[in-house]
């Protein structure tokens, strides 16, 4: 690779990241304005508000220190989340396929796992004022039980994040291995090359099943309705994200929008063989996939109640079985 080639590759990577960022700030607005608000027969927020204007506003807010045993670490977690999301995008860019071990499905899975674990850390490091110990008469007289150890609502979230790591993320990882099974390789360049020869994985039986499973996993990873048990309003409110204020909350918003785009790009790479590349028309297709995922996710979430474990376990088990069938179908 010459210096010019390296320079072009570097420009392509940075350019793709900029495009991803620009598109991702509009995705939450599309979700809430174009889908949720229309379905719910209300005006809804301005399209730029949830993903763009809200983070900008939060950057200029006063920094309030979170109620946390390690506020520094707690505040740094959304930034780590953004870094991981950017790394995930870089992995799927074709300019970096020469880093064979890095540009593989194993690296994708590893980084996605770290992304999930962040929620567990966030939950365990946050102790919001809403559930803090406060003197209240029910502790003094007439109480049913006294001196019971108290749990913070974020601790509940943290435990739920742990369970999600254990079982909730099965669908997305199983779906990721459908193209692997078809291409016979864990390396992304092989998977893309296979699809350039044989056509997209999505247009096979295994690919269709795998795409459905991937989409469910996508929604679980984004903690979107109905899989929003990590931050359900009925008990844990915002859960691990509750204590984030000012620019740190802005990072949370940016991270989520970026994650929608990046997971869509992973799907485009693995199931369509079209990785995000600024130097090619495939970047447009990545944007279309991101838009499609956002709209479908918003429609599903608008018509779903929150799942508790009673619904969560069977759905994850059923979708995981579908994923296994997809892998079996991909071998046929």
């Amino acid at each position, binding site marked *: 690779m010459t210096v010019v080639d390296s320079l072009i590759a570097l420009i392509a990577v940075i350019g793709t990241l900029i495009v991803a960022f620009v598109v991702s700030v509009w995705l939450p607005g599309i979700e809430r304005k174009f889908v949720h608000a229309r379905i*719910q027969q209300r005006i809804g927020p301005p399209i730029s508000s949830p993903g763009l204007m809200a983070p900008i506003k939060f950057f200029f807010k006063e920094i309030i220190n979170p109620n946390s045993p390690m506020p520094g670490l707690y505040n740094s977690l959304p930034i780590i989340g953004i870094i991981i999301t950017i790394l995930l995008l870089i992995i799927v860019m074709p300019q970096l396929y020469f880093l064979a071990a890095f540009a593989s499905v194993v690296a994708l899975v590893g980084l996605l796992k770290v992304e999930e674990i962040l929620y567990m850390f966030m939950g365990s490091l946050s102790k919001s004022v809403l559930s803090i110990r406060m003197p209240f008469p029910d502790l003094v007289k007439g109480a049913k039980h006294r001196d019971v150890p108290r749990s913070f609502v974020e601790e509940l979230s943290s435990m739920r994040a742990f369970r999600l790591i254990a079982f909730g993320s099965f669908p997305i990882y199983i779906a990721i291995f459908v193209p692997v099974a078809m291409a016979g390789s864990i390396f992304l360049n092989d998977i893309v090359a296979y699809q350039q020869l044989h056509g997209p994985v999505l247009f096979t039986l295994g690919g269709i099943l795998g795409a459905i499973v991937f989409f469910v996993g996508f929604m679980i990873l984004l903690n979107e309705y109905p899989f929003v048990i990590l931050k359900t309003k009925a*008990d844990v409110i915002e859960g691990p994200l509750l204590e984030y204020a000012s620019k740190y909350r802005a990072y949370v918003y940016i991270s989520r929008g970026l994650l929608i785009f990046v997971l869509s790009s992973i799907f485009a790479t693995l199931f369509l063989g079209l990785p995000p590349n600024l130097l090619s028309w495939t970047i447009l297709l990545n944007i279309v996939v991101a838009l499609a995922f956002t709209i479908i996710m918003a429609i599903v979430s608008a018509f779903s109640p929150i799942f508790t474990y009673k619904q969560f376990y069977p759905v994850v088990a059923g979708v995981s079985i579908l994923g296994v069938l997809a892998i079996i179908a991909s071998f046929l």
Partner: protein
Amino acid sequence: MEEDNKITDETPKKQVIETEVPLGPVHSAAIEPYRVRLFVEDEIVKDAEITVGVNHRGVERIMEGLPVEKANSLTEKICGICSNSHIWNSVMVAEKALGTEVPERAQYIRVIMEELERLHSHMLYLAHGNEVLGHETFSMRLFYIRETVMELLRMIGGNRVQYGVPIIGGIRPRAELNQMKLQKITEGMNYIEEKITNFAERFISDSMIMSRITGVGILTKEDAIRLSATGPTLRATGVEVDLRTDMKEYDPFEFDVITQDDGDVKSQLLVRVLEILEAIKIIRQAVKHLPEGPITNRSWEMQDTPITKSYIEVPRGKLYHSYYLDEGRVRNVIVRTPSITNIGAMEHACIGNHITDAQLAVVQCDPCFTCTDRAIQIIQL
């Protein structure tokens, strides 16, 4: 002493609770300030405790010694949802004590107001229930349908809340219903009936929602009676009790007492949906057969009276008001809202459910803690 402290086989075992999760008094799922202490083991609620008192205003004490007309107006401020129920019941206490006859037309209009209030209260309940379920779309749509009722209430009473319609001996002149208003009420009922029927069909056929609400927050008939549950909360357990069947104001109207058997969240929601349809039926009858005549009887005279009580069936259950009149002023006022007697049922309904369903189990009993708080009597121990 050592002998006294020795644990024997006869010593009752104290229930060991693993963790307490305190929710409230400020919480996003609670639209009112109340506190729920959930005692959980592995996210399953083993016991629950609900505490109110955060919003205490001492309305009963404020009413003490006020002229009866002013006191009646003040009762309306107890609750923003069932304000008409409070003023109606308070006015009924005075009418009962003074022996005042109310013109038939005024009784009909009072019933229309009360049933409209039941409509908006039940729709608010359904919307809030769906919000706690996490189904924002249904919640928003129900609020949208409810707007029609709110506009009808504004048309009759002049306000969207605290309409001030009943007065001693009848209703205020501004609440008189002319043909145009009656036509609008009829159109409103047609619209709400169509929309609520559509909602009910969609709601029942949604397997995800049914999975969330079936078998959750179960309250058996025996427990509901033991815990003094009232209103739709009691009727959802299969007990056929509705004070409206005993109220002379409702004698001219035909309606069914709605009951369900399961006592879970599904039954609680369905009872309210079906009661909405019954309320529409009553309003239609009242509009159709609204008698001609005066709307106020001014021929009553103030006098001292003994303690007089009145119970009526309001959207949440049985509402109690009592006081006596002394030189035209009210004394010894007692107000008991239905939610205070439903608290035991709410606590019981939480037990055995996942912690996410606990708020749902509370909400299923349609609590109105703010009116309970404002009126409840705090006894110094």
